[in-house]
Structures are given as structure tokens and as C-alpha cells.
């Protein structure tokens, strides 16, 4: 039986009825109609479902929806505002850090969460931060370049 669940998603309070066995990922996709977070494996192995939960990157397929009750969730849909793309999004566009794009919401969320913690990373740090995100298309080179560029942009504008 579906149970009430309260989440703050991308700054908006949402009260939803959600199956008790649903993962946060299924809840976001099926119930909140936010399909940006992707299901690449549903087993915690690919990172495509990464969202921020209270500011920290989590693989949402491994989080039970109801265990996230009352927490603040940021998904890829919540990054860009009326002024345009976030620095990380912009850097991925400009540096060609994407191809098929299926891994990209997860990668961008991992990178966004990470740069909030460490705005001054080395390339090695970045590689570790996205170490749980599989990407089959890019070979990561341009992804790493994009995250480094975003870090710089964030430093310069903050």
C-alpha cells in the first residue's frame, strides 16, 4: 500500500503517495515525474541515478524512498535556473564532456556535490570523486577537463 512521503525536491515541498518498497530513484521518476536521474543498473554500480540528498551525492537507486522522508533532494532538473546553466553544466557543454548523455545527470550531480565540498581539487581528486560513475562513451578525459574548468569558474565567481 502506498504511504505518504514528504520530500523537498529542487526547493519545492512535495507530499506524495509512494510504495513502501520504492527506491528514491523510482519515486523521483515514477511519482515525481522527474526523469533526469537515470536507471543504468538499479544496483548501485553505475552512478547514473546520482542525486544530492541534503547536499551529498547518493546513488538514489540504493536509497529507500521513505528513508529520505523530510530530506532535501536536488536532481539534475534543479541545477539550472532562469539565469541559465550551473557552472558544472556549462563546463560539460563547452568542453564536450558528454556524448550519449545517459550517464551525464549522474556525473554532473556527483561533480556538483563534490565541488561544494572541495572547490580546489586536483585532477586526481576529480577522478576519485567521479570514480563511481560509469561512462561508456567519453573515456572520461573531457569529463575530467569539464569538472576542472567548472571548479575554476566556481572559484573565480565566488
Amino acid at each position, binding site marked *: 500500500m502506498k504511504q505518504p512521503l514528504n520530500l523537498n525536491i529542487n526547493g519545492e515541498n512535495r507530499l506524495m503517495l509512494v510504495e513502501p518498497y520504492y527506491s528514491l530513484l523510482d519515486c523521483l521518476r515514477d511519482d515525481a515525474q522527474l526523469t533526469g536521474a537515470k536507471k543504468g543498473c538499479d544496483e548501485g554500480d553505475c552512478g547514473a541515478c546520482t542525486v544530492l540528498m541534503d547536499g551529498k551525492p547518493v546513488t538514489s537507486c540504493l536509497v529507500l524512498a521513505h528513508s529520505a522522508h523530510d530530506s532535501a533532494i536536488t536532481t539534475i532538473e534543479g541545477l539550472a535556473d532562469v539565469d541559465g546553466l550551473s557552472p558544472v553544466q556549462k563546463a560539460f557543454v563547452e568542453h*564536450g564532456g558528454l556524448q*550519449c548523455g545517459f550517464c551525464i545527470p549522474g556525473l554532473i550531480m556527483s561533480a556538483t556535490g563534490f565541488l561544494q565540498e572541495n572547490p580546489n581539487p586536483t585532477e586526481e581528486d576529480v577522478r576519485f570523486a567521479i570514480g563511481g560513475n560509469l561512462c561508456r562513451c567519453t573515456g572520461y578525459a573531457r569529463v575530467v577537463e569539464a569538472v576542472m574548468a567548472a571548479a575554476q569558474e566556481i572559484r573565480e565567481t565566488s
Partner: protein
Amino acid sequence: MTTQFKVLERNYPRVDAYEKVTGRATYASDVYLPGMLACKLLPSTRSHARIVRLDTSKAASHPGVRCVVTGTDFPDFRFGSGALRDRYVMPREVVNFVGEPIAAVAADDEAAAQEAIELIEVEYEDLPAVVNPLSAIGSGAATVHPELENYEGYGFTLGHNVSTLLDADRGDVDQAFRDADVVVEDVYRSQGINQGFLEPMACVADVEPNGRLVIYASTQGPYQIRAALASVLEIPVSRIRVVAMELGGGFGAKLRLAFEAFPALLAMKTGRPVKLVNTREEVFTMNGPRLPVTNYIRSGVMQDGTIVAREAYTIFDVGAYLGAGPNSGIGHGIGAYRVPNFRLRSYGVYTNKIYVGSYRASGVADMTFAVESHMDRIAHELGIDPYDLRVKNALREGDVSVSGAVVPTNGLMNTLEAIREKIDWPRDLEDGHGVGLALCEWRSGSGPSTAAISVNDDGTVSLLTGSVDISGSDTSLAAIAAEALGIPMENVVVSKRDTDQAPYTGQSGGSRIVYSQGTAVQRAAENTVEKLTALAAERLGLPEDALGCEDGRIYVMDNEPQGLTFAQLAAASITSRGGPIIGTASLSSMPYTPVFAAQAAEVKVDRATGQVKVLRYIQAQDVGTAINPMAVEGQLDGGVVQGIGRALTEDQQFDPETGAVRNPSFASYLMPLAIDLPELENVLINVPAPDGPFGARAVAEPPGFGPPAAIANAVYDAVGVRIKELPLSGERVLAALNGQNAEIDFDVDALRRAEGVAAD
């Protein structure tokens, strides 16, 4: 970089970049329709068995279940994905591999569908199965397809489990071997490989009020899916519309009909939309990967390093069905070299495993591993430098390729030279460090292509092609159109693919899009310019040859300020002439254009663990004109990293008894992560292709071919052991360091005898 082009040879973001970084790009699994049902599949638990009883009654009456279908609900029709019509879309009587779907359920939600799947009762009668392709060839082995000879498409083979045989011959091979100073012989084995696309197979089927089927697909070939669906469902092609959604990676795995027929039939039976999204385990166990390949290779060589003869016998395991192919690998048995005499054979062999699929130039990576490892073996046998041996034998312009086509102008030598400079070859490194080379060759893909460009009355154009965007091809096609029309990239709108709207085109695969589809776009643009010029000539009262086209306008050559913009011409045409201006072009094939790449790996081998670490990876590829260098490099990076995975960690394993996939998850099938990789270095060589659009060549395939051989050669350079079997895992390298490097069993004489070639 200085350039003669206005748009090309510059870096610009992909046309779909914004939708992708904002999470707005819509993939098939993102399609949610009102009243949509969820579909789940029941996999076979047997490798080869007769279905004696399949009782779906409990499942059908389970709460929430709307429909259950099995093989007999589909028309009695055998279709094929490769050269042979060897399979039912869902088996009717006999299952041929563990994982083969034998029933599909549509229910209100996934949970109910899965519960129903577990209520289906199956009774099997096991049949003798065969798992190892080398034993499957032998006469004593169980037969996978007893009716093989009756299948449509069946040609000459050795029969029994051998589904296909490809061959290529030139010269007097046996005499050349007798004349050779040295003969070098090897057997290589490459492992099963999963394509590893991140988006699982997904599809939503819907039925329009008029009964027409709509498929929202994750596919590289919407027209091919439409045709195959029409056959297996026995409905006319015109009753099916396939909408190609954003594609979350395919690499060949999504070229053909996969599971779309299941939700399609369920939607037709229930009148409701039905969604099927595979789990990752299903992706690994139901949808064709690459299966292991064994390559026997032998060369006759003169003391000075000249290769005079080559013989290669390849055994491709094709699993239960010929899901792809026969394979292109065989044509690559001589590599990028001139070899005057050769005998090349490749056998496709059925086994009771998951059927084989396509993956980024199927078979060529396996062949390149063998050929390029073998080149180093020859070099060491003769005491010649491996780089010099490659230069000595490399194909030159004017040589004849395996297929008989003459090799046109190309940058092969430039790629070798670039690699030599980059790594400062020959290098003398400390113990445990090594450098290895590999030379890769491919051709630019050909096939039916068509494009239409309509001019809008604001001066922009809409570009319509049927090609699904893989590897950023939409962006490249827009750039080609912009260049040919003399307008900025932003003024080209690329439409999304839908078989109702876009003209027919071949699949997106084999590095075909930019080279062939790009040529169609270039010609359609030229056709558009002709039409614009004709209209301008009429309007201005001047002959066409007095007019030029630049910056989105047709102008008078003697008086540049005088002219008409595309916007003015489009508006004029709509109101006063034959309607909107549309330029079109179609082509069915393109001339042979090779693509060459030289690569080098620098590795460090840990003698205690056998662990191989790649410290540097460099590739130099002749890409012709680089339409968008940033995108080209993205292709090179992505391809080479797939190749590094193939070299070191990826290994699709099969149970030796049942043939079942043993590691169906990303946790057990190890693809490279960002932390595993060295810095990637690319050198773009730009020798324009004589026929490609503005001189562009195909890009995406060769990068992945080189790493297994380059890394194996580097390991040999580092620690002196020759590994002939992939992947080069720590375990395998350590065993070799301990002197336990098993030779691979391969009875080539049996194959020679079977076709009447004298064994020696």
C-alpha cells in the same frame, strides 16, 4: 588551426548538449503514457531444451495482470538478425540458451508483472547442449540447429554447427610459405565482451486509435526495427511507426530488433501502452554481446622482414543465433599491410549460449589483437625493430586491399611517424616498464543515405535525415549543412527521427553516418543552393552563373551588395513559386575509403602481482578533415578506453557446462572507471578523403582496436612474456611470469582437411 572552412574544423558544442546537461533529453525509458502497463519477461533456465509444458494460467489470473504471451502467440515465422533466418522472436518449442525469453507479461505495474512471471509453470525436456565452439565444430558434438540447412539464407558451410564461412584468397599461399625464410605461427584468443551501453534496452509500444502501432525505441536503426517488427507480427510496414528516442549508447547492440515485439504484441492485445525496460542483468543475459573468438594466424616472412604469405583461421562463437554477421573480422586478417599471398577463413559456430551481437566493428578488434601481436612476434623472431617491420610492410597508396579495392590517398605513414615522434621510439626503459605499438585499419562505412533540407522564411534551414544520432552525428551533419550552405551552425535545425517523417536511411553503425550520411547532407545542401540560385536568377533577371552564394544570401558576383537573402527567397518561393524550397539527395553506397590509426601504450608491470598499469596511451589517427575536432577527440578517447577495458579487465564469462553468463552485472563485468585511466593523448592526422564530405573520414571504430595488442606488446617489452589471451589480467600475467603460459588449443589441420587444403 588555420582552415579554409567557415564552419568545419572548429570546436563547437553538440546540438543536443543543453537537453542532455539539464536532464531534459528523453530516452525510451523516460516515456510515460497514460494507462501504461509494465512488461516483464520470463527467461529460460535451460541451455538447450524442449518446452514440454508452459502454463500461464496462474499468471494470467494474478491481480493487476492484463495479458500474458508466449512464443505461440506470435506468427509462426523465423526471422534473422544476421545472414540467416534462424530464430523465432520468442521460441515456440525449443530454447537454445539460458536467459532466452519464453514468456512476457503486461500488468498494471512492474511488481505485479514480476509476481506473475514467477507464477508461470514451465516443464523442460533437456536436449544435449554444446558450449565450447571448438568442440562444437567436431562431429561428435550436439547440434544446436538440426534444421539449419532449411533456414532461409543458408549457404555453403561445413554444416552441423557451422553457420557461416567467410573466405578471402590471393596468390599461391602454399608456394609462398615454402619460399619464405621464416614461418611464424600463433593462436590468439579474445574474450566475450559486453557493449556496456549505459541505457538498458527499453521500449514503449502504443496503439493509435486507428490500430496503428507506435514504438518509442532505443535504437540505432528505426527502419530496420520497423521492417523486422512487420515480419514477426505479420503486419504491413505502413502500420508501424518507430520513434527513435535519445539513444543512451548502443555501440552496435541496438542496431536490430531486440525485444520490441513483446510490448508491441501486448499493446496490440490490450489496447494499452506497454513499457519494457530491461534490468541490467537482463541486458547481460538476454541481449547479444560479443562472444569469444579464437584466431589462428601464420605468416611466411623473408629475412629482411617482408611478409610474403599469411594464413588465418578464425572461429567466431555465434551462440544460439546469428544475431549479427557473419563477421567483418576476416577481411582484416592481413591488417594494414601488403601481403601478396593469403588464405583467410572465418567460421561462425553455433553454441548454446546467448546469441552474438554487434559491437563497434564486430570481430575487427579480435583480429587486430591477433594480427598486431603477431607482428611483434615476427619482429622478435627476425630481430627487427617492430616499428620498422610495420613501416616496411604497411599498405601504400595504390596497393590492393583484401577486397580488391585500390587503396586511395591516406595518412597511414603520417600516423606511424606521429607515434614515433610522440614516444621517441625506440625507447629503452627500466625493467618492468615497456612500450608497445599497434596499427589499426578500418574503412568509412557505406550504405543507403538520404537527406532533405528545407529553407525557412527566416533564413534558417531544417535538416531532415533518418539517421539516429550516435557519437554526436547530428552536430556533424548540421556543420556539414552549414558549411555547404554558407550559413552559421545555429541556423541549422536538426529534426528528430521518426519513421513517419524522415526519409529511409541505413542504420547508424560502422562509422557510416558522417561519411555516407554526411555526403548526402552535403549534396542536399548543394541541391538547395541550386534551387535558391535559380529562383534568385529569375527574380534578379540575371543568368545563374552570374550569382554566388555566401553568408546566407545569393549575391551578384559583379556587384556584391546586390542580392537576395535565403529568408527573402524562401518567402518568395512560398508565395509566388512552387512552395517551400527543399533540397534533397540520396545515395546507396560510397567508394572505399580506409581509415588508419597508429597507437602506442606505455605500461608498468608489477612482477609480484602481474598487474598491468597503463601509464600513457597515445593514438594518431587519420581522420581526414576534422568536422568538429573536439567531437573527433571525444570519439578517440571513448573508443580507446573501451579498448583498454577489453585489454585489461572486461571479460564476459560463461559457465562451461550450461553456457549461462556468469557475471551479469557492472560489479562483476569490469569496465574502466575514471580512476583507472592514464592521460589520453591524441594526434589528429588530416589527409582529406577523396570522397567524404569536405574530405572527412570515419572516426569512431579504429580507436578501440589497438589497445589489446599495443598493451600486450608493451607487457612483452616490459617483462618478456607474450600473452595471447585476453584480458591481460594480473592473474594471467602472473601465471606467465611464473612460466605457466598455456598455449591455446586449436586443431587447424582439421579445418584445412575439411575444406581440402593440404595440411602441413
